[in-house]
C-alpha cells in the first residue's frame, strides 16, 4: 500500500468554445496591431489551443501565427522566428504576447530599414526624409510596405473560452494517481500540466508537480514532471511518460518494503 497523500488529487478536465472576434489582418502591419491589442484568451487560442489541437500531427505544425506568416504572407524568416518560440517557457500569456510582438516589430524594422536603403540609392536624401514623414503620418492601418493577402487568406482572430469541470477521478495515493492518470482524457492532462499554470498568474508549477511536492513529499518526481513539455512528445506520450515515472517510484517502494 503506497503512502497516503496529505491532500487528495482531484482530476479536472477542460473543454473549450471558440469565439469569432470579427478582427482580421490582411498584412503584417494589421497583424501586429491586432496582436498588440489582443487579450490573453486570443493569444491563448492561436498559440496553446492551436498546439493542443494539432499535437497528434506528424510533423506538428508551428503555432497559428507562424503558420499564417509562412503560408499566407510568405515571410519565411519571420515565420521561422515565430515558430521557434518555446511557448511553454513563458510563465504567463502577457509575456508570451510581448515576445511575439517584439519579434514582429524587430522584423519590420529590419525590413523598413532594407527598403529605405534600397530607395536611398535612387532618391535624394531630402526627398526620402519627406516621403518617410508622409508615410508615418498616415493611419497605422494604411502604413504598410507589406502587401495585402487575398480576402480568403486573411488572418481571423479567435478567442478561446475554457470550461473547467471535475471528472469522477480522485487519487489519495500513488497507486490511485497512476490509475486515474491512465483513465482521464488528454484534455485533463493538458489542463493540469500546462493551462492551469498559464491562466492563473502566480501559479508557478503545474498541478501534478505541486501535488507531488506538497502532498506526497516527492520533490524528485515533481521536478521530473516539471521538465516535460508537449513540444517533443504528444500528450499521449506525456501521459505514458508520467506513468513510467510513477511506476519507477512504486517499484522502489516495493523493493524497500
Amino acid at each position, binding site marked *: 500500500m503506497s503512502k497516503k497523500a496529505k491532500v487528495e488529487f482531484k482530476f479536472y478536465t477542460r*473543454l473549450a*468554445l471558440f469565439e469569432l472576434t470579427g478582427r482580421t489582418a490582411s498584412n503584417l502591419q494589421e497583424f501586429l496591431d491586432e496582436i498588440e491589442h489582443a487579450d490573453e484568451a486570443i493569444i491563448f487560442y492561436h498559440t496553446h489551443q492551436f498546439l493542443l489541437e*494539432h499535437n497528434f500531427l506528424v510533423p506538428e505544425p508551428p503555432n497559428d501565427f507562424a503558420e499564417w506568416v509562412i503560408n499566407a504572407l510568405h515571410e519565411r524568416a519571420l515565420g521561422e522566428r515565430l515558430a521557434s518560440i518555446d511557448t511553454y517557457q513563458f510563465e504567463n500569456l502577457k509575456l508570451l504576447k510581448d515576445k511575439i510582438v517584439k519579434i514582429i516589430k524587430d522584423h519590420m524594422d529590419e525590413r523598413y530599414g532594407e527598403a529605405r536603403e534600397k530607395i536611398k540609392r535612387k532618391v535624394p536624401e531630402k526627398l526620402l526624409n519627406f516621403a518617410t514623414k508622409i508615410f508615418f503620418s498616415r493611419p497605422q492601418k494604411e502604413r504598410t510596405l507589406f502587401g495585402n493577402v487575398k480576402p*480568403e487568406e486573411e488572418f481571423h482572430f479567435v478567442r478561446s*473560452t475554457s470550461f473547467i469541470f471535475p471528472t469522477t477521478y480522485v487519487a489519495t495515493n500513488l497507486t490511485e494517481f497512476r490509475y486515474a492518470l491512465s483513465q482521464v482524457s488528454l484534455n485533463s492532462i493538458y489542463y493540469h500540466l500546462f493551462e492551469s499554470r498559464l491562466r492563473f498568474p502566480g501559479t508557478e508549477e503545474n498541478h501534478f508537480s505541486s501535488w507531488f511536492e506538497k502532498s506526497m513529499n516527492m520533490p524528485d518526481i515533481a521536478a521530473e514532471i516539471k521538465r516535460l513539455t508537449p513540444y517533443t512528445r504528444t500528450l499521449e506520450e506525456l501521459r505514458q511518460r508520467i506513468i513510467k515515472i510513477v511506476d519507477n517510484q512504486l517499484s522502489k517502494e516495493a523493493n524497500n518494503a
Partner: protein
Amino acid sequence: MPERKLDDYLTIVGKHVIEELRLLAGKLKGKTVQHINSTSVGGGVAEILHRMVPLMNELGVETSWDLIRGGEDFFWVTKAFHNALHGKQTEINSKMYEIFLKYSKMNRDELKIYGDIVFVHDPQPIGLIPLKERIGKKWIWRCHVDTATPNMEVWNFLKVFVDQYDLSVFSAPPFSRELKIKQIMIPPSIDPLSEKNIDLEHEVVQKTLKDYGIDPSRKLITQISRFDYLKDPIGVIEAYKIVKRYMDCQLVLAGGSATDDPEGKEVLAKVKDAASSDKDIHIMELPPASHLEVNALQRGSSVVLQKSLKEGFGLTVTEALWKGKPVVAGAVGGIPLQVMHNITGMLVHSVEGAASAIRYLLSNPDFAEKLGQNGKEHVRRNFLLTRHLKDYLLLFLYLDHIGETFIRL
C-alpha cells in the same frame, strides 16, 4: 435512418469523449432545448438535427425540434435570401421583405415557444426573435450559410434580427460578420456511422468502381461536387490532363443531377465537352440518395480533389479526409480549417498547382498515406458529430457566462 446511441460512437472517438459529453450534459440537467428550423427533410440542417436531437435526449438534455410554417411565396423569398447571402446575383425587392415579415409575424403568433433555450437555425425562422422581449428565454441564432461575401442589403435586413439574439453561431472564421452580439465558431460535422461515411468492405468499393466502368487497378482522381462554376470542374479536367501527360490515371467528376438548375445544365454541358476526348474521364450525375456510391468512390480514389474557387465549409473534404484519403483542395471557405498544407492535405491556388500536387501524391504514396492518416485523425478530433454535440452543450452552458473566458462549472 437507424437511431444511433452514444455508445455506438465509443470505438470511433474513444471513451473519454463520451465520458466528457455525459459530464457536460449533467450540468444542463433540468434545461429544455427547442430547435427551430423550416424543414424536417432534405438539406444539411435537417440531417444533422435528426441525428443530434435523439443523442441530446439520451444525454439527459431534454431536446425537441419544431418547424415554422410558410407558403410557397415565403420559401421562394427565403431561397432568394439564401442565394443573396451566398453572394449570388439575386433580384431582391421590397415585396419580398413584406412577405418575409408577414410570415415571421404569423409564426410568432402560432408557434409555441417552451424551451429554456431556443435554438433558431438559418434565416427562415430568424423573425421569431421579437418574442424574446415578451417571453424571455435564451435565444441562439445558428447560421449554416456561407456569409463571407453576402448581398449587404439582405444581410443588413437580417442583421436587425440577429442583433436581438443572445448568441450567434457561424461555421468558420470567414463567415463571421460585424455584430453587436458574440459570435461562436462551431464547424459542422459528419456522422461516421452514416451511409456516406461508414466503413465499406474492399469488395464493395471495387464492385462499385467496376459498375461505373472505372478500373480499380489504376490510379483514380475524384472530385465529388455539384456541377457549378465555383467548384471549377473545368479546372479539374485541365489539371487531370496535365497529370495524364506524365502518368496513367482516371478521373471521376460526380455530382447531383443538374436537371432543375439552368446554370448547372450549362456547366455540365461544358464539362462533358471538355471530357469528350478521353474515355478515362467519368462524368456522373448521381441521384440524391447515392450515399453508398459516393462513399465507395471516395474510398476507391488515390487522390480526392476539391478544387473550389468558393466554398462553404466543404463537408466533401471532411468526408474524404475521414476516409484517410490524400486531399488536394482550394484554400477557400472552411477548407483551411481542415486542410493544413502538407500536413493534412495540400492546398492549391491554380490548375497548375493542383496538377503538380496530384502528381506529387501519386508518385509518393508514403507521403500521401501520411497526409491521409493525419487528415483522418484531424477529422476524428474536430469534425465528427460527437464534437458537434460537445460544442452545442458548451454553447448552452456559455449562455450563463457570456463574456467570460475561463469558466468553472
